[in-house]
């Protein structure tokens, strides 16, 4: 009974909040010490560091941003990040997404994770966006890091990292039903969250259908399809131990006449956090993930991955804060090309990836901290790769932070580059793998400034310079075409964004990216790859703008615009797109929204060759969301 009395008291305090709904800060004063200590504040990265003082180019898309954008999928939500180039493509991989260049439909230098589980495939080292969906209402935030993150996240975090982080089960209690329909998209989902003995759980199910887009000629692109996902998450523990168990399963089908494409997969992840005496911490995480991909008559790929990692944060030692750990990943990949035009040798491969890392954050002065870190990662194709970084941050004045970083990152070889042969039997006169192919290397130098001079204004700017070495090329040899590392390049540019709360009910945000790239091929080498396969097809800049208004207590209006400069090869014209969303809170537990995308033009292409690329159409989407609390 004592337990209940305490809960009831805590509750009475919590229920005092609605009365002060328009003054949240005052509401906090009514919470108990215990409740205050349980509020998750915006933080970023594995270390507990406030965003303002993170020495990297990080943009955080919040749950509120996602809701107010009207996005129905992860790639659409990623359009909110000013440091990403997001383009719809012809293949129902659906999207080309990258940071700092190197973008194409098989963009391979951006690492993507959901709750610490990599969704980056070792098949081509990129993300199959057609197989990723989740309940966007349950996403807590998406952290988008542009620039290298290899020391923390491993090989392939070359140009950036996307971390999708879902809410803790305790924060998704009660029932939620959402349904929406429009000319391009229909979706429906439910979630239910309940309490456990000393924790909480949720279960969800969602289905999303996309209509086929059209080509410029008016013909269908045959890229429509649907994906159904379901899953759960449970968090429990106390007294310094925290446990998480979560899993998802999906199945998807895409039209792609005449072939079609069928996908399915599932994953299960367990995580254990322990707080150690003296301020240290230990985290152990393991997951299993399988994906089954059948591009009818073109490609089948079955990938089973098992991954375990441990991170130990030592108790602060004087000025030092040391973290070390390691991980082991085993992937079992079975790929084949049914028609018999080419073959993967071996067609069943065991892919390994092991790493150890150590990082030390040194408080040189109260206002200056230096982070030195290194990871050594082995894979089954190359010798172990060293992935070091040095980052320094200086809190110039309260609310002002200057940082600089130097890092080395690599993109490790993949099945596609090492194991593809044609014809199916020797002699392989067409494709002959990449016997000497090794990692692509990136050396990055960054300097950034982040500021929050008042609680209403914040901005960030980063200058970057990237040297790319051993870039992928393909050359013709007497034995057939092989992958080699005969190109190098340079990219430099600026990323900047800011947001300004003009009035308590009106916020403006804007972002700009501008970059210059160059690539050169070694003298005497005749490269067979097209320019976009060599170094990506990137605009030299893009601009985003957003206005978020609360029109009274129950109405919200958001307007988003983006302008993307022209793409060089294949050439895509520059475009400007304008989206808007009107949300109406009918009751505390019921919301209706209307999302209009592409208001200013009937359709525009974003990527690909004129004959096959989809026109991103004007769209209308109406959705309803009901909750029990």
């Amino acid at each position, binding site marked *: 009974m004592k337990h*209940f009395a305490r809960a009831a008291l805590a509750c009475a305090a919590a229920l005092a909040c609605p009365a002060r709904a328009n003054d949240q800060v005052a509401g906090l004063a009514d919470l108990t010490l215990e409740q205050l200590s349980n509020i998750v504040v915006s933080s970023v990265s594995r270390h507990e560091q406030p965003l303002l003082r993170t020495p990297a180019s990080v943009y955080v898309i919040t749950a509120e941003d996602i809701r107010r954008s009207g996005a129905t999928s992860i790639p659409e939500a990623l359009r909110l990040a000013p440091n990403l180039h997001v383009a719809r493509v012809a293949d129902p991989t659906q999207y080309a997404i990258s940071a700092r260049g190197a973008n194409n439909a098989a963009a391979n230098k951006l690492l993507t994770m959901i709750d610490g589980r990599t969704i980056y495939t070792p098949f081509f080292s990129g993300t199959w966006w057609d197989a990723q969906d989740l309940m966007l209402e349950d996403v807590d935030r998406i952290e988008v890091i542009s620039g290298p993150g290899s020391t923390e996240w491993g090989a392939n975090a070359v140009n950036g990292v996307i971390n999708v982080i879902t809410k803790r089960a305790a924060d998704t209690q009660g029932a939620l039903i959402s349904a929406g329909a429009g000319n391009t998209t229909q979706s429906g989902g439910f979630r239910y969250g309940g309490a456990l003995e000393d924790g909480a759980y949720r279960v969800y199910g969602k289905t999303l259908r996309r209509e086929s887009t059209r080509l410029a000629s008016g013909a269908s692109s045959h890229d429509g399809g649907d994906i159904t996902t379901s899953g759960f998450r449970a968090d429990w523990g106390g007294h310094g131990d925290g446990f998480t168990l979560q899993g998802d399963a999906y199945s998807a089908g895409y039209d792609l006449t005449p072939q079609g494409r069928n996908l399915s997969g599932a994953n299960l992840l367990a995580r254990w956090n322990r707080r150690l005496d003296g301020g240290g911490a230990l985290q152990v995480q393991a997951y299993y993930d399988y994906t089954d991909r059948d591009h009818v008559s073109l490609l089948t790929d079955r990938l089973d991955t098992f991954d375990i990692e441990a991170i130990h944060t030592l108790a602060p030692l004087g000025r030092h804060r040391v973290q070390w750990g390691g991980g082991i990943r085993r992937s079992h990949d079975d790929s084949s090309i049914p028609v018999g035009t080419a073959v993967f040798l071996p067609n069943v491969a065991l892919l390994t990836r092991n790493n150890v890392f150590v990082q030390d954050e040194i408080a040189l002065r109260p206002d200056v901290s230096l982070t030195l870190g290194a990871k050594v990662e082995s894979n089954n194709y190359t010798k172990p790769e060293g992935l070091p970084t040095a980052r320094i941050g200086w809190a110039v004045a309260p609310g002002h932070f200057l940082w600089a970083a130097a890092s080395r990152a690599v993109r490790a070889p993949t099945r596609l580059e090492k194991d593809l042969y044609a014809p199916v039997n020797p002699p392989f006169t067409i494709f002959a793998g990449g016997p000497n192919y090794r990692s692509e290397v990136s050396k990055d130098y960054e300097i950034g400034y982040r500021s929050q001079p008042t609680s209403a204004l914040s901005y960030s700017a980063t200058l970057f310079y990237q040297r790319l070495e051993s870039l992928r090329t393909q050359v013709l040899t007497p034995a057939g075409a092989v992958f080699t590392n005969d190109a190098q390049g340079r990219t430099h540019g600026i990323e900047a964004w800011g947001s300004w709360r003009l009035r308590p009910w009106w916020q403006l945000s804007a972002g700009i990216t501008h970059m210059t790239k160059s690539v050169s091929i070694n003298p005497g080498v005749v490269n067979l790859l097209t320019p976009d396969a060599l170094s990506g097809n990137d605009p030299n800049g893009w601009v985003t703008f957003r206005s978020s208004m609360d029109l009274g207590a129950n109405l919200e209006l958001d307007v988003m615009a983006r302008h993307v400069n022209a793409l060089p090869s294949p050439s895509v014209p520059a475009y400007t797109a304008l989206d808007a969303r009107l949300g109406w809170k009918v009751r505390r537990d019921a919301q209706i929204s209307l999302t209009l995308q592409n208001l200013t033009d009937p359709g525009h292409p974003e990527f690909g060759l004129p004959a096959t690329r989809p026109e991103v159409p004007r769209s209308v989407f109406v959705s309803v969301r009901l909750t029990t609390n």
Partner: protein
Amino acid sequence: MLRATLTLLAALACLAGGARAQSATEEEVKAAFLYKFPAFVEWPERPPAAFVIAVADAEDVASELARLSEGRDILGRRVMVKPLRKGESAAGAQVLFVGRESARLAELARSVAGTPVLVVSESPGALDQGSLVNFVLLEGRVRFEVALDSAERNGLRISPRLLALATRVRASRR
């Protein structure tokens, strides 16, 4: 069964409140803690008129604290939030908060050593510079570590309920 149902309902209602506070910023939560802490400290004497919280080099926390404590009291006294200008001393304050960008934590803590002032900070290693309570971030949550020896030196006793939430407690010299 009834008890289980009631607990569940209470927990659900609480979560509704928790969800609201979910989007709080670090500064807001720290301000709320600063407002809460005095009730969990045994003070040698009650302040004469106002309960003064001095804030050095943390404008955001100071402004959140001023908003939050408006019209409220601490231990029956009106709350006064006093931003400390350069060179200004913390004498007369009951709570002193020193921001992480500050270079004068050690100096300020020394100036109030031996007097009943609760020195709160937010910098790694601050307990060694004379702070009594130091905020840390743990898994995205604001928590704190406590130095009982420094508290004892300033004549303050910290309540067990507050200590129970500390990530680390440095023992008293006794």
